[in-house]
């Protein structure tokens, strides 16, 4: 089992400033899954509990001189602590910059998988090692990782990943994630469970309802991807609640309940600087999915080398949908 690569400047910029801080907020530990073509950071894909996230990069987006080999079709997966990984990259980058400033020749940040004997231990342990070589010196940082996953576990991870790629039939586009985040952050004081409705008319409706209060927000006329439908004229004058309920009855909307905490966490992904986000609900309200879209810098074209999405698994489907 071998893995060795050089982190490119673009890779450093993506991971250090954008993705690692965002992913760290979802959960401290994640699985890093490396294949011949992709590097994927995965949260909670195997335990299926609450909030899942998948951040996938084409190898060229992060690395060059990428070498990987394993007896399992060159696939390697392990768990890593994101804050340690972030710290290691940050400080390696710092060292690289210092060396460059000192006029040293082409410093590159190498990353590789090693097994080492830690101090006070007789068992060799796996590490992800970051090596910065200067003219006269080299700085090595070891980030401890879990034992690489077995063939069976990797297969399970791959199939979970495949099924997580299924898209909801209707997606609505949210441009202003900051506004949504500020709203949800304030809303979370009021209750724990968030009702979410998404309709083919381009409506996204969020609501917290307890015995004492109902607090909600409805965003209308959003851009729809996938299945869409014209909203009936008579629904215009209705309350948001009534409109959503009627759309569900007609089959024009799906509803799901998720944890407010999870929803707020997923909005932290805006630190990864996505250009916009799409929300959709899987059929029968199985889960809420948010897909973040990244543009190629300076264009309005989707950067297909990066993808990030989160799914929230349902607490239960709302029972009050009459």
């Amino acid at each position, binding site marked *: 089992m071998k893995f060795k690569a050089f982190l490119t400047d673009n890779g450093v910029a993506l991971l250090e400033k954008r993705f690692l801080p965002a992913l760290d907020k979802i959960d401290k530990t994640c699985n890093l899954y490396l294949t011949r073509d992709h590097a994927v950071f995965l949260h909670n894909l195997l335990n299926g509990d609450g909030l899942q996230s998948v951040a996938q990069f084409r190898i060229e987006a992060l690395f060059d001189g990428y070498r990987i080999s394993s007896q399992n079709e060159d696939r390697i997966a392990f768990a890593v602590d994101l804050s340690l990984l972030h710290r290691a990259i940050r400080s390696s980058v710092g060292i690289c910059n210092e060396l460059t400033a000192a006029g040293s020749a082409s410093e590159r940040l190498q990353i590789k998988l090693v097994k080492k004997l830690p101090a006070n231990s007789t068992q060799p342990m796996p590490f992800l090692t970051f090596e910065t070589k200067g003219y006269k010196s080299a700085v090595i940082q070891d980030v401890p990782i879990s034992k690489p996953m077995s063939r069976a576990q990797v297969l399970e991870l791959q199939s979970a990943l495949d099924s997580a790629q299924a898209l909801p039939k209707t997606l609505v586009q949210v441009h202003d994630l900051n*506004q949504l985040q*500020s*709203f949800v952050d*304030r*809303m979370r*004081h*009021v209750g724990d469970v968030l009702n979410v409705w998404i309709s083919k008319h381009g409506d996204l409706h969020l609501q917290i309802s307890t*015995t*004492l*209060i*109902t*607090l*909600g*927000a*409805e*965003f*209308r*006329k959003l851009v729809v991807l996938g299945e869409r439908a014209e909203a009936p004229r008579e629904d215009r*004058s*209705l*309350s*948001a*609640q*009534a409109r959503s309920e009627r759309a569900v009855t007609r089959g024009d909307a799906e509803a799901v309940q998720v944890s407010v905490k999870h929803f707020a966490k997923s909005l932290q992904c805006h630190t990864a600087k996505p250009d916009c986000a799409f929300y959709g609900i899987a059929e029968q309200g199985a889960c809420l999915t948010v897909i973040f879209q990244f543009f190629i810098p300076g264009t309005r074209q989707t950067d297909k080398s990066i993808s990030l999405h989160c799914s929230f698994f349902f607490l239960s489907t709302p029972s009050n949908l009459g």
Partner: protein
Amino acid sequence: MSSSAIGAEETADLLCHLDNVQGIVDALSSVRWKRHQDAVIEVSEHGIVLIVEDSGCLQAKVYLQRELFIRYDYSAQGRPRFGVGLGLFVDCLNTFSVPGHSNTIEIRYPGPDMQLLLKSIDSLDACIYAEIRTRIPDTISWDYDFEPAGSSPLSFTVKSAALKEAIDDLEWPGSSVQITLQPAPPSVMFKGEGHGDLQIEFMYYANTDLLIAFHCDHAVSHRYKYKFLRATTSNLPSNVTKDNRGSKLTIGRGGMLKVQHLVSVARSAATHQYNPSGYQQPSRIAYVEFFVKPEVDGDDT
């Protein structure tokens, strides 16, 4: 649902529009001294008053006069009163206050099920709404009629930031605080007694910049529980200490202490930039009053 909503509009006791939610959140937050507080809201043709109480010893009122609203339609007979959880109400209002956006909201009472209804009305394609369940309020448990102690008032006005600092400093002796006013030399003294004692004195002539006004014709001294005194300044919004207008303290009959603050409900800074004079409309002030009962053994001296 729609027909009942339209019906409610016709018969609503109160329908008002507000363009500075954050100011109202600040004003209401200043009477939030613990986690769970029941508030009573009283609506009249003059505006909205919110009242909270604690242990029969402390009462606070926030006056939101009708001038603070850009629309205020009142059509009730008598003065409707209802109870809400203060924390929930403030958290809910806070959701409507989106920084960097103008937020105009509509407040309506009662809804079809006696709820307090709120909704944002400044955007057609995004709407925030809330329905807060109201309660039938308890009767006010003590008579808070504040009466002057004598023919001339016993009062002083102190810079709000200084008052807050003094009360914060009195925390360590804890327990109770004695407030003494004396005419010669004109001064106010806060004395905390408990684990130790701490005395903070404002001399009128020495600290005219701190003690802005002083009225006292005979010495008076009363003790108040620290936790109630602290509640009067613990959640002052930052604009009160920043503007530092001054808070007025008056001692009434029986030693009842009245503390008054002025909370600015001026519109958000963004709209202010268009106002070349920088002059704030005087009516855009919410009045906050606290009434603190003295400790029983703190008789007049």
